[in-house]
């Protein structure tokens, strides 16, 4: 079975090539880190996999199903979910509601039931609240349930993003720079969290800048440069490749 | 002959609407503020000129003072209202509601200070007319066509060719670029609204001279102008001006074919088609403001 296969994906914006004939396969149950210098196409590949941009050519196959032309929300329901580099929390909602609206369960998400079956809806709400609270507990935010997302610390906000993506019950989770901007303590918590997710059987695709973090979490590394996938391999293979290192750290770059 | 006359009348109305359209478009594409109160400034300027003429001022002086009144009220609007709201991180919705409030205030100030009734300029020359090849144009109509084209060309050249115009466009396309242009966006926005409001005073006065004025009808003019702006492509001055003429000619000719009472519905029908089929407009050049 193919778990996730991206084949010959190309995407241009105006004259700018964001992705150039990228193809790779991800195996289930592993943590794959997407690395590369700025503008390499890391976020673009996330957007293509989750459907936030449509590729000019190429296909995305998830669990033997061609998802290339599926809508964004349908991909989430199939099991592909993501976080954002700029978090995109619902700032005015409480931590609990942030998770609650992301729950995979569609019950209670329509106006008719809300207005005409209030007792049923109340029961659904109660169940969903419990479910969301459990997820918050899991990421260590159990004590912040009623706090508006805007008032959380940056580290807590990032954990809340994890809780939200867990709420979707997706098995393939794409994390866009989960550790950026975190202080040491919060950073360790996040790394632990990522390992926990893996232990629970989730497959992770992670954009990560910090090579030490990559060493700590990655099973595989995908190295992007100027829209092309230059290499895919174990962290050791990639870090030992001197040419990649030169590109990554800008040494020997022709510019 | 009937159709030719209707066509020419349509072009003239279109020129006047075109000025409203380019002036609205200029401010909107630079600041992103949906300035509904532009219609209020339109009304105000028309009545200022009317009152001055009634008080015995020569028409040219009245027109100039109306333009000045437009510039000042535009500057004040940005400086006192929009900037204050922007400083408080107001959402576009809040800006828009405040602008509707300002429109209401301006229209009713006009009604209170000047007159709530339909008024006409007391100037004998305005009913005179020219006959050119069987087409009749009133003197004010001829003036509208002439002045509109001059102003349209002037604003286009200013925006595209002059150094200041280019730097203003740079602010419009990218807020961060603004730093490189060494212009203070706050002051630039106020100047831009002053320029826009000075421009909109011209059709306000001239159409008033040609026909008559009423405090409460300018919103329809503005909405037609905005429809033209969107159909012509936001940010494109020739697009806005051209589409204004196209819409006005359609409206004028349509009277000969269908009952005139449906023409407003027709304009908005065209608009709905546009935003569903070709949301970027006909002549869109480049407008990178996130809408």
């Amino acid at each position, binding site marked *: 079975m193919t778990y996730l296969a991206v084949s010959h994906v190309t995407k241009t914006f105006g004259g700018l090539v964001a992705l150039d004939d990228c193809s790779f396969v991800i195996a289930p149950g592993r943590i794959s880190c997407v690395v590369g210098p700025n503008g390499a196409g890391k976020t673009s590949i996330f957007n293509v996999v989750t459907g936030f941009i449509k590729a000019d050519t190429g296909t995305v196959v998830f669990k033997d199903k061609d998802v290339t032309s599926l809508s964004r929300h349908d991909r989430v329901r199939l099991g592909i979910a993501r976080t954002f580099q700029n978090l995109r929390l619902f700032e005015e909602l409480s931590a609990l509601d942030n998770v609650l609206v992301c729950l995979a369960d569609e019950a209670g998400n329509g106006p008719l039931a809300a207005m005409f079956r209030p007792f049923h809806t109340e029961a659904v709400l109660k169940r969903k609240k419990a479910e969301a609270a459990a997820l918050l507990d899991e990421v260590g935010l159990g004590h912040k349930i009623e706090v508006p997302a805007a008032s959380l610390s940056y580290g807590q906000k990032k954990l809340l993003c994890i809780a939200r993506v867990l709420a979707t019950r997706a098995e393939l989770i794409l994390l866009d720079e989960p550790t950026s901007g975190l202080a040491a303590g919060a950073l360790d918590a996040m790394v632990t969290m990522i390992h926990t997710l893996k232990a629970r059987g989730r497959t992770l695709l992670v954009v990560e800048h910090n090579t030490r973090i990559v060493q700590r979490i990655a099973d595989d590394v995908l190295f992007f440069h100027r829209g092309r996938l230059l290499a895919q391999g174990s962290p050791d293979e990639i870090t030992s490749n001197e040419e990649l290192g030169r590109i990554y750290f800008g040494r020997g770059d022709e510019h | 002959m009937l159709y030719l006359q209707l066509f020419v*009348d349509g072009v003239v109305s279109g020129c006047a609407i075109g000025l409203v359209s380019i002036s609205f478009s200029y401010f909107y594409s630079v600041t992103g503020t949906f300035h509904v109160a532009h219609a209020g400034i339109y009304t105000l300027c028309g009545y200022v000129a009317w009152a001055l003429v009634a008080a015995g001022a020569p028409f040219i002086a009245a027109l100039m003072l109306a333009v000045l009144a437009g510039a000042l009220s535009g500057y004040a609007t940005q400086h006192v209202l929009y900037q204050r709201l922007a400083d408080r991180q107001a959402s576009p919705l809040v800006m828009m509601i405040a602008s509707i409030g300002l429109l209401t205030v301006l229209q009713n100030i006009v009604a209170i200070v000047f007159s709530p009734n339909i008024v006409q300029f007391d100037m004998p020359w305005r009913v005179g007319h020219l006959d050119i090849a069987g087409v009749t144009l009133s003197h004010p109509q001829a003036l509208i066509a002439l002045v509109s084209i001059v102003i349209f060309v002037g604003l286009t050249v200013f925006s595209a060719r002059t150094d200041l115009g280019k730097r203003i466009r740079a602010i419009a396309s990218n807020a961060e670029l603004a730093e490189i242009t060494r212009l203070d966006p706050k002051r630039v926005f106020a100047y831009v609204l002053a320029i826009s409001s000075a421009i909109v005073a011209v059709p306000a006065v001239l159409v008033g001279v040609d026909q008559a*004025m009423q405090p*409460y009808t300018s919103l329809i003019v503005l909405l037609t102008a905005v429809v033209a702006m969107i159909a012509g492509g936001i940010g494109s001055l020739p697009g806005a001006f051209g589409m204004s003429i196209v819409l006005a000619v359609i409206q*004028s000719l349509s009277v000969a074919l269908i009952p005139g009472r449906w023409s407003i519905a027709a304009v908005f029908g065209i608009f709905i088609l546009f935003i569903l089929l070709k949301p970027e407009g006909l002549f869109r050049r480049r407008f990178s403001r996130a809408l």
Partner: protein
Amino acid sequence: MRMGLFSKAVMLLTALASAPSAFAQPKELLIGALLPLTGPAAPIGIEERNGVQFAVDEVNAAGGAAGVPVRVIFDDSQGKPDQAVLSFNRMLDLHSVPVIITAYSSISLAIAPLATRREVLVVNPAAQTNKLEKASPFLINTIPLVNAEARVLARYAVDKIGKKAAIIYENAAAGIDGATDFRKYFEAVGGQIIAEEPVEFGQTNYRATLLKIAAAKPDFVYIAITQSQAAMADQIGQVANFPVGIGNTFSSPFFGFKSTEGWYQTGIQSGQLEPAKVSSFKEKLKVEEMGFFAREYYNATKIILKAAEALIASGRPVTGAALRDKIQEIKTFSSPVATITFEDNNASRPVEILQYRGDKRVLLEAVNPTR
């Protein structure tokens, strides 16, 4: 007249606290006047108010209606039906008036069912829409409705002007009624409508419409608009060979333009009061002239007061129903303004046909329309 805000508030509270009393106070005769005192129609509303006030002052100066002092309660309808319903209820709750003088078709139509239900007489001295004819058994019209004018005009036009007509009408109540009725009567007497164009209320650019009408080459054009006649007259001046125009009471502002020389209009005969009264009116109310609406509202108020006087003199309570019956019983009311006859709830009065000749409006005919 003028009451403190405090005493009004007290009255409001008393009215809210107690059940509404069924009968008016015997010591005073109250008349309600629900007029557009604010909004676009306010200039007319103020003139109407002056007419009512002048009539009441006159009666009070002469010792009241059969000895009972008369007081008017004015209220502002803003020209809006929902505000009118509020005002109507306010007048009945706070003042229990037996009769209300109104203005504006929409206002009179909105309160007509309430008047029927609460048996209050509504007197309309100015609105002309045909629907008012049978809107309520408690609605009396002291002005001929649009259809009466249109009938007279249609017959005159066929006889003296031509059989092919075009119509320009304002797309609002008065204009639509005018156009519809004119078409009906004109066709009934053998005329033919060859073109018809509506214009919007508040429009000032009529060029396309005028060109289209002129291109149809009718014998004349019937114009039913209520505002911006001056702008239309200017633009008619630019259209070659525009046909002669005819209009109704609202067409008066067309008078005095080069382009409208020789036009016709109908008018409701409405004479001036005695010069002494007119100058007293101007002096008391500080206005330049006693206009059409002031005269009509003055006259309507006098009709109400005459009926009320008769009721009080015979010792009967002044209620809406009694007033209405009394007005129909008296039937004919003569004054310098007009001689009005009530066959039913609707006045029957002479209609004039006028022509613009130079600086004069010449009276061609005065006809009493037969129903």
